[in-house]
């Protein structure tokens, strides 16, 4: 545990969702996936979305499936990643999504910006990226749940990504 980082987060007062550590962890994870899975990489960047548990990330995929009425089919072959990571590739409309399980948190990684926007709203009470957790949902059309992570989980994920030399 990096005492300085935990001290920094504690005294920032930003402990919940949409914080800077979550942002860093998302960026770091996107880069790691891009390096580890070059065969998936085209020109677009990867977007990472973190959830408090892998089961919450799975719930997002299931809800997305319900929305489009086009079933999302899990691929049977696991994606090769470092030993501590568990990941499964899912496919929707030809778009690939990685469902990741870190034990203490989960993630969805995609390179489709539209899919990312939808997933984000589903994991954050219907709010779009960059809006924050306001009470005004008058223009949001997706019934989202609360699958957000804490800054504390983001710190733990950053630590995990840092400790794995392959990332």
């Amino acid at each position, binding site marked *: *545990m990096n*005492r300085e980082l*935990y*001290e920094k987060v*504690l*005294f920032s*007062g*930003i*402990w*919940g*969702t949409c*914080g800077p550590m979550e942002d860093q962890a998302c960026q770091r994870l996107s880069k790691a996936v891009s390096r580890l899975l070059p065969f998936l990489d085209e020109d677009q960047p990867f977007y990472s979305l973190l959830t*408090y*548990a*892998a*089961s*919450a990330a799975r*719930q997002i995929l299931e*809800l997305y499936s*319900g*929305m489009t009425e086009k079933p999302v089919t899990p691929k049977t072959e696991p994606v090769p990643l470092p030993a501590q990571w568990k990941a499964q590739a899912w496919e929707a409309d030809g778009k690939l999504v990685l469902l990741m399980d870190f*034990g*203490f948190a*989960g993630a969805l990684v995609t390179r489709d910006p539209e899919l990312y926007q939808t997933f984000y709203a589903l994991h954050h*009470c*219907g709010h779009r990226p960059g809006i924050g*957790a306001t*009470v*005004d*949902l*008058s*223009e*949001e*059309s*997706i*019934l*989202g*749940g*609360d699958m*957000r*992570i*804490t*800054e*504390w*989980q983001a*710190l*733990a994920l950053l*630590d*995990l990504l840092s400790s794995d030399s392959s990332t």
Partner: protein
Amino acid sequence: MFNPPAWPVMDASDLQLILEADPRALRGPMSRRFAKAFSDFTQAPYVIPVANGTVSLELILKALGIGPGDEVILPPYTFIATFSSIAYTGALPVFADIEPDTYNLSPLQTEEKITDHTRAIVAVAVAGRPFDLDAFEALSQQYGIPLIVDAAQAVGAEFCGRSIASYGAAASFSCQNTKNLTSGEGGIITTKDPVLYEKLQSLLDQEPGPCLGEVPCALLLSQLSRLPAQMEKRSAAADYLNAHLADSHLVRPLDRDERITRDAHHLYVLRTRTEELAAAGFSREDLLKDAHQMGLPLLAGYQPLYALPSVRSEMTRRLTGRQTDLTPLPVCEKASYQEGLWLEQFFLLSEIKELDEILEIFGTLERRYFS
């Protein structure tokens, strides 16, 4: 601009506990220590810390066996999570109107919505003020329908001297960043029912992901030690503001209910005196705008859930199997669009000098509108 006290509150004692926690673990010693401390605080025999105040409701509903084909009654004047947690089980959310003098779910309106398919009532302690728990427990017993207490905003609240955590089949709390007891995100389930507790634990045995992490549990443990003093301060501030606004022509505080022995005051709620303002040619929107310009960030509060695009969406209809009745409900309409005014809880941690500044803003606007 009026500057409220900083929120959340923290010091080195929080850090000390955090550093003792395993950041990758679930259901560890910090979780057990916090559950014990919260049980002592609320007198609720069973406590489960979970990831947030939405999944807590989802877990309670699942443990009660609620799913497709069932109906669950809720108020439309609440956060979207109350609705989404029901819809995600596949059950049909059914709206009942709120009470005009409290903005909490009306027992009479709720009873009118009970059908053969009703499997639960989720009543919300809006702003941290307990609803009529006597009436809802009586309804629950009369019809054999479990009462779920959505106490997301009501940590520490008491009704007739009993913790809100001890009412209903189970109670659900939120520890999101703005809440009176916070770890950034987090939720707490309390129940006095050992069978329901075992079902909840069984769900978490199968899928431990929704459990709250050890670091937020450690933080809640240290934050809980501050809560009683903060509650005293909020109550004193609310009483002070209520007393000084009792004769205002602009606003009126919520009605007092002697059975509420402790209001958690997550929000300080006022009602606009709409008729008097309208007679002078003004509205709540003028009051909101002018208060903002004077540095007081009053909020208009919830919109009715039935008016939200996400609730009216095809996705929601598919989740619940049928379309929820989206007919506007008159009391909620008035609260949402004409009357309701909120100040966030940390304003109630202000000193008297700052509270007087708030009162001065109301006084200035009253003189402006009625001169």
